[in-house]
């Protein structure tokens, strides 16, 4: 079979349309460049009634929202999940890593939590503090102007608090806390844990005439039809298509590899069109990889040539290494004061209105890095699973659990909205022996060799999870509540979720000044092929106790400006 070549030579080919690819598309197209965006999944627009899940009622589906086909419930916007039929991944040495992929225009930004946190000055130089991991080659000052621009372009609510490692920004005003969040504030203060308004990318106020303002349905995970939350498709790629550049979208196209010439420079990409199952190639002066940290590593490792026998950009043998996800551990509590609630609409924005940034001093703790606390609760829309074990909390009052009849009805209403939950999201230490690599024994249905993962938590992460659990129990007691479930044991890693579960995987193509110890330079340009850039979370040196998206966006903007500059100067 002959590979079908497209005659167009693009200024840039961008692989992936999530946060990193979307931002590169916007910046490069706005600079007047001719851009191809290659996305492994279908076109997606939450405004399209056929694709909309926002504002749907559970009874519009025969399974009432059950998670049979989508891992976060069937109204979640992400196409894909932990497992994708025909696209397996494997594990090494009995280790565990769960890989969430979303193949669609906008990728995982269609369903993400919109928690939009800047990394702080310490996060870029944390090795200086505790000697662990590696410092970034750049500092907060290098990225700050781009965070500022991202805030203004995309919109994020929050407040300027003057905290040393949770920098201020250009925030929209936050929504008022809900009832259970007021209980949380009170409970957290008893223990000396600070609580501040959340920082999330929903528009509580207009930022331009193209996007709508939040109407408080609480369903950002379903993607917003008025574009009031940040998704890469609605907020970056669609506007880029209206700009002065040319943006050609190639959807349902799975990139196999980056093609290179005899000098080792990239010439473009080859991809499989999922609709006709044929192989195609695209030519470009620059290739921007933004397929997600692990998918980008996979493409590089599969891009073997005479000039790059170990995979593209992999002379250091570091592509895929230093993979790390945020740590995560969760707990819930029953709050008797929240029984028999008066019912009103408290949907609010999708997710929490308040949160706790890391407050501790690790010098006095038995683990090196921090975590932030996310809060949930409230009188949400019933979906599959609502009312399971409806009067389980009767046991706290010495009443029988179970039964049937009129009493059940009363119990359902009595306990509606009386549960709060906490999620700790923390920083893991990046380690070389946590990695993904090519599994030579397995290909996916497109014939592309798949990834094999090797990942183990260390005691740094386990002890952090233990601290999370102790903190959550204290918080629940402070709120006058009953902790649900048993304290997770050491054998259960203190409730530490399997790596990958927080979907913040980063670090597979880390940046640095030394080509022997890093894959890209400080502008996310491959050391070994100067017209290949990576704008997903692969170049992260460390993940911080924050979420990664805002930093992906800022860094992608910065790298994209550098690309424009380098093209102008004819350096690449």
């Amino acid at each position, binding site marked *: 079979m002959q590979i079908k070549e497209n005659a167009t030579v693009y200024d840039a080919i961008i692989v992936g349309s999530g946060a990193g690819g979307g931002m590169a598309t916007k910046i490069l197209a706005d600079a007047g460049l001719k851009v191809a965006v290659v996305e492994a999944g279908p076109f997606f627009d939450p405004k399209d009634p056929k694709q909309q899940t926002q504002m749907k009622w559970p009874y519009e589906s025969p399974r009432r929202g059950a998670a049979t086909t989508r891992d976060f419930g069937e109204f979640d916007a992400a196409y894909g999940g932990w497992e994708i039929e025909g696209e397996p991944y494997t594990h090494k040495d009995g280790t565990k890593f769960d890989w969430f992929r979303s193949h669609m225009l906008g990728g995982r930004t269609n369903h993400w939590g919109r928690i939009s946190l800047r990394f702080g000055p310490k996060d870029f130089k944390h090795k200086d503090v505790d000697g662990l991991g590696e410092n970034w080659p750049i500092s907060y000052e290098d990225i700050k102007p781009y965070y500022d621009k991202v805030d203004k372009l995309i919109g994020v609510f929050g407040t300027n608090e003057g905290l040393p490692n949770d920098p201020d920004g250009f925030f929209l005003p936050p929504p008022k806390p809900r009832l259970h969040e007021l209980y949380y504030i009170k409970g957290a203060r008893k223990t000396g844990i600070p609580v501040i308004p959340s920082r999330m990318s929903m528009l509580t106020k207009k930022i331009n005439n193209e996007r709508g303002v939040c109407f408080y*349905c609480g369903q950002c995970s379903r993607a917003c039809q008025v574009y009031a939350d940040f998704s890469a498709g609605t907020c970056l790629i669609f506007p880029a298509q209206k700009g002065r550049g040319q943006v050609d979208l190639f959807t349902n196209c799975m990139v196999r590899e980056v093609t290179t010439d005899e000098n080792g420079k990239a010439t473009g990409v080859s991809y499989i069109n999922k609709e006709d199952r044929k192989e195609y190639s695209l030519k470009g002066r620059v290739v921007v990889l933004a397929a997600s940290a692990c998918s980008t590593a996979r493409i590089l490792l599969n891009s073997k040539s005479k000039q790059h026998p170990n995979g593209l950009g992999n002379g250091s043998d570091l592509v895929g290494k230093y993979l790390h996800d945020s740590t995560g551990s969760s707990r819930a509590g029953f709050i008797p004061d929240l029984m028999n609630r008066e019912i009103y609409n408290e949907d609010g924005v999708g997710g929490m209105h308040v949160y706790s940034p890391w407050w501790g001093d690790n010098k006095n703790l038995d683990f090196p890095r921090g975590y932030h606390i996310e809060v949930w609760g409230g009188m949400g829309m019933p979906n599959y699973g609502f009312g399971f074990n409806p009067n389980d909390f009767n046991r706290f009052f010495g009443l029988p659990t179970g039964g049937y009849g009129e009493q059940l009805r009363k119990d359902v209403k009595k306990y509606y909205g009386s549960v709060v939950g906490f999620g700790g999201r923390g920083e893991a230490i990046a380690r070389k022996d946590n990695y993904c690599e090519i599994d030579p024994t397995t290909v996916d249905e497109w014939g592309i060799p798949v990834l094999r993962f090797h990942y183990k938590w260390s005691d740094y992460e386990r002890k952090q999870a233990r601290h999370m659990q102790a903190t959550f129990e204290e918080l629940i007691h402070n709120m006058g509540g009953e902790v649900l479930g048993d304290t997770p044991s050491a054998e259960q890693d203190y409730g530490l979720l399997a790596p990958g579960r927080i979907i913040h995987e980063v670090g597979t193509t880390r940046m640095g000044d030394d080509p022997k110890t890093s894959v890209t330079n400080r502008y996310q340009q491959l050391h070994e092929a100067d017209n290949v850039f990576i704008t997903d979370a692969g170049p992260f040196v460390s993940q911080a106790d924050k979420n990664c998206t805002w930093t992906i966006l800022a860094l992608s903007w910065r790298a994209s400006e550098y690309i424009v500059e380098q093209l102008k100067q004819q350096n690449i």
Partner: protein
Amino acid sequence: MDRRQSLKSLALGTAAAGLALHGCKMEDQELQEAVSAGAEHYFGRTPEELEQIAKLHAETFFNPHEMETLSVLAELILPPVEQYGGPLEAGVPDFMEFMAKDIPELQVTLRGGLMWLDHKSNTEFQTEFKSAQQAQQKEILDAIAFYDPEVPLQEQPLEIQFFSLVRNLTVSGYYTSKLGIEELGYKGNTPNIWDGVPQHVLDKHGLAYEEEWLAKCVDQSKRGVIAEWDENGNLLT
């Protein structure tokens, strides 16, 4: 026809319709039609998901007798109330039928439990569960309706697991239906402007918003005004 009787035929009707579909193998075109018909009802499903739903609808799991028994159970678990109705009006038996196919792990517990129920009723009262007197039905349920919250459910007797599952599906199916949501009183899933907890609710809980915190929050009267900041990030508009 009394209400009980009409609901019985309602449940039977559904099962029969399912059987009819099952009886003649669906032609490709029929499947196609079922898929595109679904597009109106299940916005947001991908073509593959619609196809899967159509396939599940075309299969039948519970036989008419099982559907009738589940209907009787559901109405015992959540007896209908005048203003809203009950599990049958909420489509709970159909929901259970669909979930048994959607999550096949539920099948043995449900089907085996139904057999257990009839066996118990036949032994005690010489009649199948669905035809027993309500007092007899309740006598059977009283022995299996309560579980020990300290023991994992899968370690408790099958009949307790069975009833727990039917109760969960009934309560979840009912309260995710239109009338169940109305009865629960959930007020959201509608465009609105969140402007904080109502004052009388705050008062009832002995809570108050702090001035300092409120000052940072959105002034909803200015939500339509485009945001502008000074160079220090102070919002000007």
